[in-house]
């Protein structure tokens, strides 16, 4: 039976139409023509074809968030063309500008704003051209559906520029639509990808095929630092369709004619691995973290003399908060297709959130000029940070080079759980001093977290194969939000950047910002309790007077949750089920999106079972392009982070990860998802900020604060499992 379905052909045709419309029909994997991709060129972002169809080229990719629809709204709004006439090309190193990785809640804030400026520049240019053509001043022209009209005459965008590239620079001061004139931006437009996804017609990277494509699977070491001493190819001789075993150092992979043969071959291949037991003892992970050499000390806030203030305070409070190692746990294991053309050029298709960076990494690993590599984004399963897609692309590239044919690699579930880069362990010590009125007079925080920022996470294949790589760790920008948005008279927050961390680290949704917010906002709650103060009132006491938007989200969440003003914990702890509520606030990275939350929980005093029953959230990310899409992100942040807060924890022995599937790494289930009440604050006249991460930051602290309110017991170690809760209640 022909493996290429009719749907596949239609899809391939559709993909080709995009390229064809701009004269860039790719004739094979490697035959491509560069178009302008410099971020200051309008042509890098936009083209208009002879039929008036608009193509948006964007470096930020849709990781399942719906951002594609948002980009279409922005372009449609500024150009006055219907959304149906817009196509979007994302994350293709030959076609789209390098706008950095799709991370950090920056896709609208940076990527969308850049697109808006390009579209506004294009519109002004088109109006000037039309003015000349129609003999009517630009100011007297109007645009509807891509047709410029004035003085009784009209001309279409297609007639003005159809098929020719824009040649001007982006003017970031080009006038954009005023809030009152917007018709598409600010509306909850239905996402363009959802119909195909619910009818089984969407082409994920997992569904992508190339002519002559083979299937590959990596065979990873059973101990993470082991090397392959010998490979017995005869062990898989009985499997029909095996094409090649590839072995280089600790990199081992198989290639076969069919996917099932590749899976069987990877499963059955006998490899003699060396012993390795270089991981720390999980039971003593925090001792290990404290004993890790510090590479760099970063002070992120420093005002007054907090040490002296705490020393002289009426009351002193201290606490240590830890947050477990997490996997991304992608629903769809990482997948990529790699193909070398006859001219030696490499093309990869993957769900990489950073194709421009992946291109450089693959070139480095393979010893190729970067110009010889093209990386194309295709959507995968939801991605909340740098997971395994880049690594799958590297696996596929090594295997494709070995066999000289296109190779598709999809990881198995255990490959994903064991080998994706991990959210590193995060430890924060806190100390505060209170005066006689309970006010904070000094605050000190020390975080023990790996060094590095948001660079390139090394490719596993390069590491295992002993191939060139940067050999640095990059856990993301994990120092933010250890500094606080509050007006304490004396404060010092210090990040002790550790030289190593047990697993290759990367950023998972709200990296560091969430863990730091968790520690700070939970500890602030401890201070409020010590001061016998209401937790909302206590926060408002220290909210800077010049930050009305922060005050507003906090006051609004209190109203939304019908907050009863009183100190925590609640006093009636007689029943078996104890109920409580906790509040939290964040100003993301202290410069953007404001979020406040109230969690309500029930704790079974006997069993320790924790149930989050309701979750209230107020959210101010400035202008919203698509309010329903923002709401979906807030919902996703809350649920994903409740899962991480209550259940998720990587387990490992001295050699490898032992939480290798969804049974040993459990995540939130439908019955555990609370009712959510979300209030979005729209500010159409403000600049748009990000929404993909900030609401995750407030979840763990809201939950532990609510648990404390219910039980009088403070949990300081994520995940807040039933076992930890029961032990804490028994110790109380």
């Amino acid at each position: 039976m022909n493996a290429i379905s009719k749907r596949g052909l239609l899809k391939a045709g559709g993909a080709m139409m995009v390229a064809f419309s701009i004269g860039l029909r790719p004739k094979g994997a490697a035959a491509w023509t560069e178009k302008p991709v410099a971020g200051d060129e309008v042509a890098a972002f936009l083209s208009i074809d002879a039929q008036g169809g608009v193509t948006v080229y964007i470096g930020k990719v849709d990781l399942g968030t719906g951002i594609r629809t948002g980009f279409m709204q922005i372009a449609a709004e500024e150009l006055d063309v219907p959304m149906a006439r817009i196509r979007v090309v994302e994350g293709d190193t030959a076609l789209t500008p390098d706008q950095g990785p799709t991370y950090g809640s920056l896709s609208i804030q940076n990527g969308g704003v850049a697109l808006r400026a390009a579209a506004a520049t294009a519109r002004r240019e088109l109006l000037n051209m039309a003015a000349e053509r129609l003999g009517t001043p630009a100011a007297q022209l109007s645009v509807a559906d891509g047709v410029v009209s004035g003085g009784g005459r009209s001309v279409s965008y297609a007639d003005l520029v159809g098929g020719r590239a824009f040649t001007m620079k982006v003017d970031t001061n080009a006038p954009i639509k005023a809030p009152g004139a917007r018709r598409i931006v600010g509306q909850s437009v239905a996402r363009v990808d959802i119909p195909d996804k619910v009818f089984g017609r969407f082409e994920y990277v997992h569904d992508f095929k190339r002519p002559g494509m083979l299937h590959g699977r990596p065979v990873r070491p059973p101990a993470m630092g082991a090397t392959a001493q010998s490979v017995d190819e005869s062990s898989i001789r009985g499997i029909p369709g095996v094409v090649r075993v590839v072995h280089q150092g600790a990199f081992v992979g198989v290639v076969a004619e069919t996917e099932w043969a590749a899976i069987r071959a990877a499963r059955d291949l006998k490899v003699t691995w060396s012993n390795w037991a270089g991981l720390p003892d999980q039971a003593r992970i925090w001792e290990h973290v404290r004993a890790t050499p510090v590479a760099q000390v970063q002070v992120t806030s420093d005002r007054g003399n907090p040490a002296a203030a705490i020393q002289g305070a009426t009351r002193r409070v201290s606490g240590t908060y830890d947050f477990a190692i997490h996997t991304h746990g992608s629903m769809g294991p990482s997948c990529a297709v790699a193909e070398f053309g006859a001219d030696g050029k490499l093309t990869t298709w993957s769900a990489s959130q950073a194709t421009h960076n992946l291109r450089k990494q693959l070139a480095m690993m393979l010893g190729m000029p970067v110009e010889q590599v093209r990386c194309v984004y295709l959507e995968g399963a939801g991605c909340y940070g740098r997971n395994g897609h880049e690594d799958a692309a590297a696996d596929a590239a090594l295997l494709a080079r070995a066999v000289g044919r296109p190779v598709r690699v999809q990881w198995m579930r255990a490959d994903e759980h064991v080998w994706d880069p991990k959210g590193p362990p995060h430890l924060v010590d806190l100390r505060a001093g209170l005066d006689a009125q309970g006010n904070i007079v000094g605050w000190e925080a020390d975080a023990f977290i790996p060094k590095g920022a948001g660079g390139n996470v090394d490719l596993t294949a390069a590491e295992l194969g002993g191939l060139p790589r940067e050999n640095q760790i990059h856990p993301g920008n994990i120092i933010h939000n250890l500094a606080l948005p509050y007006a304490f008279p004396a404060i010092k927050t210090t990040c002790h950047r550790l030289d190593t961390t047990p697993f290759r680290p990367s950023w998972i949704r709200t990296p560091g910002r969430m863990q730091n917010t968790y520690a700070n906002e939970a500890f602030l709650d401890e201070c409020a309790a010590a001061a016998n103060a209401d937790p909302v009132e206590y926060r408002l006491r220290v909210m800077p007077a010049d930050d009305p938007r922060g005050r507003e989200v906090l006051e609004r969440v209190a109203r939304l949750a019908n907050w009863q003003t009183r100190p925590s914990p609640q006093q009636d702890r007689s029943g078996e089920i104890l109920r409580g509520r906790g509040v939290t606030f964040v100003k993301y990275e202290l410069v953007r999106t404001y979020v406040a939350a109230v969690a309500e929980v029930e704790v079974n005093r006997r069993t320790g079972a924790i149930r989050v029953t309701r979750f209230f959230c107020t959210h101010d990310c400035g202008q919203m392009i698509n309010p329903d899409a923002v709401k979906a992100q807030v919902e996703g942040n809350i649920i994903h982070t409740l899962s991480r807060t209550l259940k998720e924890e990587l387990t490992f022995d001295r050699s490898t990860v032992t939480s290798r599937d969804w049974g040993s790494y459990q995540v939130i289930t439908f019955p555990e998802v609370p009712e959510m009440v979300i209030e979005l604050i729209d500010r159409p006249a403000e600049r748009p900020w990000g929404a993909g991460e900030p609401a995750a930051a407030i979840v763990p602290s809201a939950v532990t604060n609510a648990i404390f309110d219910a039980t009088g017991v403070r949990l300081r170690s994520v995940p807040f499992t039933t076992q930890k809760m029961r032990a804490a209640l028994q110790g109380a």
Partner: protein
Amino acid sequence: MTETVAMTVNGRAVTITVDDPQMPLLYALRNDVGVTGPHYGCGLGQCGACTVHVNGESVRSCQVPVADAAGKRIVTLEGLGTPERPHALQAAFIAEQAVQCGYCANGMIMESAALLAKTPRPTEAQVKEALANNICRCGTHPRVVAAVLRAAQG
């Protein structure tokens, strides 16, 4: 070594040739029949992304040897409905915008379709229980529940 397996996929008779009858149905559907609605998620029957209907029952196609599908009626997401004639669940998932990445949506819809076939008017708790073994990482859960209840009322 090879053998042929005949079955009906979305109303169409198909015969595929396999060299291992123990190959899971999922790979036959995706690579031999060419329907990509069902996704590989775990290969362990834990996540639900590969769910299809076999003779009207929802099953995890990663756990069914292709040989066991011989002579059976297989329905995948593609066969449930089309844009022109959507299943009530497909229409409801669009109306509720109950998808983020959508990798799990196949399982959510196919499992819910099996639920509604037996329990046309489920309670919210019944919906959550029916989907308790379907994993979603994006956090679409409340929209999925709303979509299933909407479809049930339609």
